[in-house]
């Protein structure tokens, strides 16, 4: 299950292979959740940001566990 940071919405992805990378899972989740394509997002598991090149097995995400998707963004006046 991938949930957005505010817990308002999520997507349950089935049969996710454990050799899938965090980046690949993130790309799937962004499409599923309709998130803005150009904005950088990260997946977090137990409050820890996951490295996007690692596989789910390597980062220790197990079947049926929940990960959170949250953006990395900057507000600003640009002045």
């Amino acid at each position, binding site marked *: 299950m991938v949930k957005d940071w505010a817990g308002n919405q999520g*997507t349950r992805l089935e*049969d996710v292979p454990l050799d899938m990378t965090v980046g690949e899972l993130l790309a799937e989740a962004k499409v599923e959740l309709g998130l803005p394509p*150009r904005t950088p997002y990260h997946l*977090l598991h137990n409050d820890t940001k996951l490295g996007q090149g690692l596989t789910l097995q390597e980062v220790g995400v197990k079947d049926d566990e929940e990960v959170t998707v*949250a953006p990395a963004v*900057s*507000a*600003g*006046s640009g002045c």
Partner: protein
Amino acid sequence: MFRSRFRFTLSISDEAGFPVHREDVQDFLPLYEDLLFRAVLEGSVPNDGGLPPASLTPLFGPGGGTKVVGLLASLPSHERTYGLGLLAARVEEILVERKLQEAPDKAKARFAWRLEAHELAHGAQPRRLRSSRLRQPYPLVRDMRLFAGGGGTHEELVSLFVRRPVLESLREEAARLEVEGAHALVGHLVQEGPGAASVVVTDHSPIEVGAGASRAHCEFTPELFLRIRQQVGSRTDGAVLLGWAHNHPPPACVATCPEPAPTCGMLFFSNPQDHEVHRAAFAAPYMVALVSGKEPGRRADEPGVRAFGWQEGRIAERRFQVFE
């Protein structure tokens, strides 16, 4: 989320008609949220967290072809037509990102853009993973005693009320801070009757951006968003997250400006920066953003506050009322 028999493509060309950018548009989430929220407020869709199927159909101009002039969004019991204004901010963002223009609103006339729709072949776009979407119901409450502001005028879908101490605190901070700071806005989403609701901001809590802030920017890391969720979730007054606030400090030149009340202003919602934060992190259709900063023609130490939020799937300035 929308299902559509069409593939939507945004194309931008320069003044000579030469194409400079082309990309598929799939993220119509703000439009779906607007449609669903309206249907829930009108009572035609239950507020149970369900995701009723919706379709998105392009409206073509009288000459036919692939150029889209509007979008028809339909739920089984509710439909609405949307203009293409919701893509304008995206076009600006692309032009800035590709360094085709320095800042939004500058040299915009040099570029033209259009949305095209092409019917998909049956069975196109296979997906890798099977999935099912889940969402929470909108946090609507019906208890008007939660605020003493009275009902909204409802010229807009959602009226906005801000408690005076919140506003005063944001103004006071904007007058003092030389770097950007941010707050989470909390309160209640009050349903006032069919098709009408009010966002009632009762409190705010600082977001600790730490070193990720300067006079011109303020960083929101993924970990920071988790802390905001924990902060709001630990409240015991039933208040929910309604949006965010931040300040735009005056430019450094204000300190040495010979004019006592320079005409420059910092009360804007910048694109792409502020738009991106709102779109990426505060996408619920009732969520708002307050910006505090110098008003044109007024001293920097007398800052004002403006509100922005979702309107028909795009981010626009919002009126608000203050209550005690």
